[in-house]
């Protein structure tokens, strides 16, 4: 397989991974809004047609699994490309660090779910807090 093809695959998985992060984030927020509506017995007009909590939960978990897989491919192809094309020490490259941090975030949320049994509110808040921390770290890394 030539480098050009790997580059295309790498870019495709960047897009897929970003999309999965975005979907996980949106559905986690929807879950928390839906839960809030039910607990407070109040339906906000804008969110009155949200899917059930069970379905949102299912979607988020699927996105996290796919996200972890997609990030793994992204990292492998990225490392391969960096090894060939970048002469300097690529382990310090910001793009690599962000991709690695995002991959760790996906794995960490999956660990919370499947090993520590996090569910519901606790799980979705963990996702949001983790993602917030991730975005903040990336922004800081970019600015420095």
């Amino acid at each position, binding site marked *: 397989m030539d480098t050009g093809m790997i580059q295309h695959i790498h870019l495709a998985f960047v897009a897929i991974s970003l999309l999965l992060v975005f979907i996980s984030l949106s559905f986690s927020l929807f879950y928390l809004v*839906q839960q809030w509506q039910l607990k407070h017995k109040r339906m906000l007009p804008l969110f009155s047609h949200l899917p059930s909590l*069970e379905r949102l939960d299912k979607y988020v978990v699927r996105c996290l699994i796919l996200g972890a897989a997609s990030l793994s491919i992204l990292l492998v192809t990225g490392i391969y490309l960096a090894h060939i094309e970048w002469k300097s020490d690529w382990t310090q490259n910001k793009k690599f660090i962000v991709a690695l941090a995002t991959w760790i975030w996906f794995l960490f949320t999956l660990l919370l779910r499947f090993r520590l049994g996090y569910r519901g509110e606790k799980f979705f808040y963990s996702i949001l807090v983790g993602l917030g921390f991730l975005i903040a770290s990336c922004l800081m890394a970019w600015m420095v």
Partner: protein
Amino acid sequence: MNLFLVGLSHKTAPIEIREKLQFSNDHSMQYIEKLSKTPDVQSGIVLSTCNRVEIYATGYESDLHEKLKGCIYDFHQLGKDNLDPYFYSKTNEEAVRHLFSVASSLDSIVVGEPQILGQVKDAYDTSKKFGMIDSLFEQVLQKTFSVAKKVRNETDIGKYAVSISSVAVELSGKIFDTLKGKNALVLGSGEMAELAVANLKQKGIEKIWIANRTFETAAKLAKSFDAYPIYLEQFQEVMPQADIVIAATGMQSYLITKDMVEKSLEARNQQPQLFLDISVPRNIQPGSGGCDQRISI
């Protein structure tokens, strides 16, 4: 002769207040008996449902509101100071209009639910037993029944079979994608419990346990819906297996405590569980909704 009404409803008082002033069937009879011994009161009914507590009475006095309220406070041994703001008082035409609206289910928390007319009729029967329905009140109540029937027959209000139970079950659709393959535990076997069971069955629930203090009543209800009757004492054993728990008993104390909910979730390996409390007074300890991964309605 004047007609007086004092009461509170879901529109004026939160559940914490309503459950304090709730009259069980026995309480209603005792209160009517007490009212019959009050010299200024000619007749009266106690309408006590999940959403309202209302006392209607007739008398020659120009104002009986305070006396009726006082009787409620005395009966429940409560101080009046904190509760007065939750009450509304109406006289004559206003009281009649309100009664028409209540009996027609226009004032219900679930508009159009048909149970309320039966509850007004039960209240009437109870007072009749104690000779607490005079001719004026008889006329008012008969008119109320005919107005309620007219509203139901001549409008679309009764088009859909709605009730608190059906709305509660409907709400489960916001939590679970489908009820197929899910289990439910229903506590109680009264009218609300029966409606809940019927709605759950209609939604395709897999298995329903019905727990009741009187096992025979649970068995009778279970038989008609292909459900499983259990003794009330057994419900804790079954609870972790139920995805939905509906409390609809007439018990005056908490049947499900926060501890029980926590234990149940632990036994379910944190699988979500929906608790619906449609009883007044409440059967599920307030604050249990704070437990993780659980929705309490």
